[in-house]
């Protein structure tokens, strides 16, 4: 047994234990902290599996933005938590929940264990056809070309998520700004960080988008870094959240799926099929245009998802 194998086994055991602890923890806040730690360790497993693209996304979403979202929810739920914890569901409900969980776990285990060996894979086909787009990163090829439909629909899902969050607003606050106006001392530590870090973070975010063509990275990973920088500036009180009624904001929110759809329809009009790209010299610039539109949409959407529903009128 090599050192790497032992490391992997320890890693898997810790992740499993964290998963169990997250479910078993009584307090919402404790469970959230467990989940964030879980979300930071799972990327290490993805790196060990040579899936660096997935690891980057998991670290940014599972450990970072998802964690912040859950922490915010836990903070909001805290006043009502004792009341919720006091209502224990009946024995039948608990037994059927346990039964359903065991059945789902068994079905998943069977699906994984009954896979033929070697498992069916399209990876060689994806690598062999990399020249069709002019991009060297096979993951970006799959996301942007071979399974472009999924990626486009994923951006529509992001849009639906933000519509869902906004629809929680009261009528009075509709069109206003989400979340409280953050105030921090002008010479405080947070303001210092919010002035120092974003220039670095913006360069790293754009670099990760750009390098995604040939190396691990891409619009989602870059977009979440940009969103984090934006949120940092908002939390330090250096800028306010945008009013959700703004025309420019709405335009940026639909830019990603919109540009994707236009390019897709272009493929239908001038090419063989929906989302069909032209031949190599022209495919890569087109994909880059979509990615730039997508990274703006992703950054703004993730930032607004964390900012929450509009709470204040535009002037407030």
């Amino acid at each position, binding site marked *: 047994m090599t050192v790497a194998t032992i490391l992997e086994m320890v890693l898997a055991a810790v992740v499993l234990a964290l998963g169990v602890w997250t479910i078993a923890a009584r307090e919402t806040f404790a469970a959230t902290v467990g989940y964030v730690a879980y979300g930071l360790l799972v990327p290490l497993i993805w790196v060990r599996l040579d899936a660096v693209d997935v690891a980057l996304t998991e670290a940014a979403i599972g450990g970072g933005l998802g964690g912040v979202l859950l922490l915010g929810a836990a903070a909001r739920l805290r006043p009502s938590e004792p009341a919720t914890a006091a209502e224990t569901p009946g024995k039948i409900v608990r037994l059927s929940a346990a039964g359903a969980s065991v059945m789902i776990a068994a079905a998943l285990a069977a699906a994984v264990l009954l896979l033929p060996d070697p498992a069916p894979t399209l990876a060689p086909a994806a690598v062999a056809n990399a020249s069709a787009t002019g991009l060297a990163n096979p993951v970006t090829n799959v996301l942007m070309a071979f399974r472009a439909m999924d990626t486009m629909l994923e951006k529509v899902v992001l849009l639906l998520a933000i519509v869902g969050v906004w629809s929680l607003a009261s009528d009075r606050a509709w069109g206003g700004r989400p979340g409280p106006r953050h105030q921090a001392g002008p010479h405080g*530590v*947070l303001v*210092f*960080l919010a002035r*120092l*870090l974003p220039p*670095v973070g913006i360069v790293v975010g754009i670099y990760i988008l750009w390098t995604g063509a040939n190396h691990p990275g891409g619009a989602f990973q870059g977009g979440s870094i940009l969103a984090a920088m934006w949120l940092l500036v908002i939390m330090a009180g250096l800028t306010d959240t945008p009013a959700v009624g703004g025309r420019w904001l709405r335009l940026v929110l639909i830019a990603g799926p919109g540009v994707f759809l236009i390019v897709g329809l272009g493929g239908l009009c001038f090419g063989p099929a929906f989302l069909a790209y032209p031949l190599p010299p022209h495919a890569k610039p087109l994909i880059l245009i979509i990615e730039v539109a997508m990274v703006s949409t992703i950054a703004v959407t993730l930032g607004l998802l964390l900012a929450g529903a509009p709470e204040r009128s535009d002037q407030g």
Partner: protein
Amino acid sequence: MSFALDILTIVAVSAGAFFFLAGTVGLLRFPDTLTRLHALTKADNLGLGLVVLGLLPQAGSLRHGLKLVGIWLLALLAGATVSQLIARAARQSGSAR
């Protein structure tokens, strides 16, 4: 030369791992928020710094080396800021004694 560099790597990374261990023990054993933060920042600053120092000879190119140093500097910045914020919050809520 490469042997000496390998020795440097082993010594520095082991020292870094020791600081992480000591920081974790401190985090678990120290009595209040401020001393726990103190232990934690040792792991971040010195532990990660020594690990990065040890990995520099193995980086292969100047670019990779600079990336490693950049990661350490970013972790320093984030660690220092966050521990300040936590310490301030702890002092305001009165849990730091």
